[in-house]
């Protein structure tokens, strides 16, 4: 029941958006709705007996719960952040009020499509869900309807569609493997997994290749990442946070589902090696681009590629690396959204996003400045923030397996990226503010959205909450192929 509540709230909110009178009230209702969704997800995670199978259509296990949880958290934070952001956009004449309502509708449609992905049991429907997320978010990317945002939106939809077609190809090949193995013709994950050992090894291998490239495009793995910096930097900022924070992760979720089957069928080393390859390439590429980045939101977008690289490397390393990767999914979602909020506030205030031009953020907007400093260190992996730990787990896993070269490479690249991020952001944060910018404070809702995520970052950094730990450990069992959890 809770599940339907979670799914239906975005739909209802989406409909409400068109009829709402007052924009501010709409924003508040929106935030409240997503808060309730988040709490419902939390409640669901604690109370419900997993796995949950509804009409063979929905299949919820610990892994799904984990992703649902991450999605609802970021969505709530983005909804909270949207209130003031959209208001300012409207009051400054950037967008019309009608368009703002349209924004809320799309926002909810987008969150609905993302929530759908981890819930459905059918791998084909997972594909549909992910394609839906693309379609829902395209307009949010091209929201401002200017040259750059339209360009970004076009690239986003075209490249993602191409990628996702390969994912579909992979899914069909999987389906072929299932149907030729003498099983019931099904694409339901929980029905395939028990029999994955009898699938044809070669076919599954090829299918996984296509899946990895296809969903990898959506997840932002280099070299298929090219849409990502454009889309993330041009999207309306709360949505940038959602794109970076969770959209990429839904694609990873899809990959994980296929990974379980492939691992059961051909052994872990095949997927592991592929993951590590893509992880390292993503890290290297993002490192290069972060070093020379000039625009703040693009910087964060490349940082997302970096973190997806880390996650995927962690998935490739296995063992503690899997734990680290899952934890990193959570941590990166929280931290990157946090950073996007900060960047959005700065860009809104200065009306520029060039790192060379912005100066004295700390001076002009003390709260946001402090948040950005903390976020800067959090995102680049300093304790006491949570990313440090998930990265450490991945590294521990690498070192204990004796993969010195790979782990060393990751460590080195992380250090370089740290250097670049601190260099870029400290330049805008410190210094004297320009004359024409006056000192200002953020509204309560904005502050709350920051603090909410900050608390998550710190709490997980100090100690992984028991319930999150439980979900992740259960998810790990699923990744290992013990599907009944």
């Amino acid at each position, binding site marked *: 029941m809770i599940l339907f509540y979670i799914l239906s709230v975005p739909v209802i909110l989406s409909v409400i958006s068109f009829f709402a009178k007052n924009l501010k009230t709409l924003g508040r209702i929106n935030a409240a709705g997503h808060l309730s969704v988040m709490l419902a997800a939390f409640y669901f995670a604690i109370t419900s007996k997993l796995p949950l199978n509804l009409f063979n259509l929905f299949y919820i296990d610990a892994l799904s719960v984990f992703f649902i949880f991450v999605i609802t958290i970021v969505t709530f934070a983005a909804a909270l952040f949207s209130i003031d952001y959209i208001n300012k956009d409207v009051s400054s004449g950037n967008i019309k009020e009608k368009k703002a309502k349209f924004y809320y509708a799309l926002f909810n449609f987008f969150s609905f499509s993302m929530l759908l992905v981890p819930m459905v049991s*059918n791998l*084909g*429907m997972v*594909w*549909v869900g992910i*394609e*839906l997320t*693309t*379609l829902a978010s*395209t*307009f949010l990317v*091209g929201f401002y*309807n*200017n*040259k*750059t945002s*339209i*360009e*970004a*939106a*076009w*690239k986003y*939809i*075209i490249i993602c*569609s*191409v990628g996702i*077609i390969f994912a*579909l*190809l992979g899914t*069909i090949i999987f*389906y*072929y493997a299932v*149907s030729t193995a003498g099983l019931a*013709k*099904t*694409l339901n994950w929980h029905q395939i997994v028990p029999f994955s050992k009898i699938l*044809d090894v*070669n*076919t599954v291998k*090829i299918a996984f290749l296509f899946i990895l490239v296809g969903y990898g495009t959506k997840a932002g793995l280099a070299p298929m990442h090219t849409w990502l*910096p*454009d889309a993330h*930097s*041009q999207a309306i900022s709360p949505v940038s946070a959602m794109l970076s924070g969770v959209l990429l992760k839904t694609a990873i979720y899809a990959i994980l589902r296929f990974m379980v089957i492939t691992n059961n069928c051909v052994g872990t080393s095949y997927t592991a090696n592929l993951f590590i390859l893509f992880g390292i390439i993503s890290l290297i590429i993002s490192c290069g*681009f972060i070093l*020379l*980045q*000039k625009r703040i939101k*693009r910087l964060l977008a490349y940082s997302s590629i970096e973190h997806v690289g880390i996650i995927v490397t962690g998935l490739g390393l296995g063992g503690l690396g899997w734990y680290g990767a899952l934890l990193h999914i959570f941590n990166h979602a929280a931290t990157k959204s946090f950073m996007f909020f900060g960047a959005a506030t700065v860009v809104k205030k200065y009306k520029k996003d060039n790192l060379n031009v912005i100066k004295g953020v700390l001076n002009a907007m003390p709260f946001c400045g402090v948040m950005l400093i903390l976020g800067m260190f959090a995102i680049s992996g300093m304790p006491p923030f949570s990313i440090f730990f998930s990265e450490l787990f991945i590294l521990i896993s690498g070192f204990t397996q004796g993969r010195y070269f790979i782990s060393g490479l990751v460590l080195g690249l992380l250090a370089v990226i740290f250097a670049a991020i601190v260099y870029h952001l400290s330049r805008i944060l410190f210094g004297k503010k320009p004359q024409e910018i006056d000192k200002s404070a953020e509204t309560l809702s904005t502050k709350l959205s920051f603090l909410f995520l900050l608390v998550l970052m710190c709490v997980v950094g100090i100690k992984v909450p028991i319930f999150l730990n439980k979900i992740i450990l259960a998810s790990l069992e699923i990744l290992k192929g013990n599907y009944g959890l």
Partner: protein
Amino acid sequence: MHNYIFLISILLVTYYMVIVKRLPALISGFRLQSFLLFLITASFAFYEKEAALYIVAVLILFLKVILIPNFLKGISRKIQVNENLGLFLNPQLSIVVVLILTYLSYLFTFKVMTFTDKMQSATFALTLCIVLTGLFIMIFRLKAITQIVGLLVMENGLFLLAVTMCKGMPFLVEMSIFLDVFISVIILGIFVYRINALFTHIDVNKLSNLRG
């Protein structure tokens, strides 16, 4: 036997789409290809006695043969775009490349995939070839609409694969995919309008403000 004929003709239509220079011809090619896809699906439904495939076939006919090509033609008429496709690679070279791709697909199918059935091998190679050709069109043709067509060609290839190899996907999935395709074409169409309005052209290669 007639399946072979369909398959070979679909391949030929795909080649035709590679060598055409003008937009209407490309869209007509796509219409033809979709029509052949419809025929294949229908015959499969007939021989395999799959009720669901009939519905799929009808949807193909309705969406891909009629609705989408008309929509695309409508766009190109409305924005009065130069009918030239804008080629990175001239037709002669293009056909050579696509032939190489076809060869590669066959090589891949016979070397890597392990089909027992010869028919299945041929179909797989063919569909792979169509997917790659779609990709080829997307890469080597400049205009926004050609990219949409390229995407649709790839999708057609996948439909063909699903139908011939697995006798269609699960019904719900199939329907959702249709929905997805339809929505995405509409959204892409809207964006083509917007691109035309903002840039006064639809040459997507010139969309390169965002770099690095």
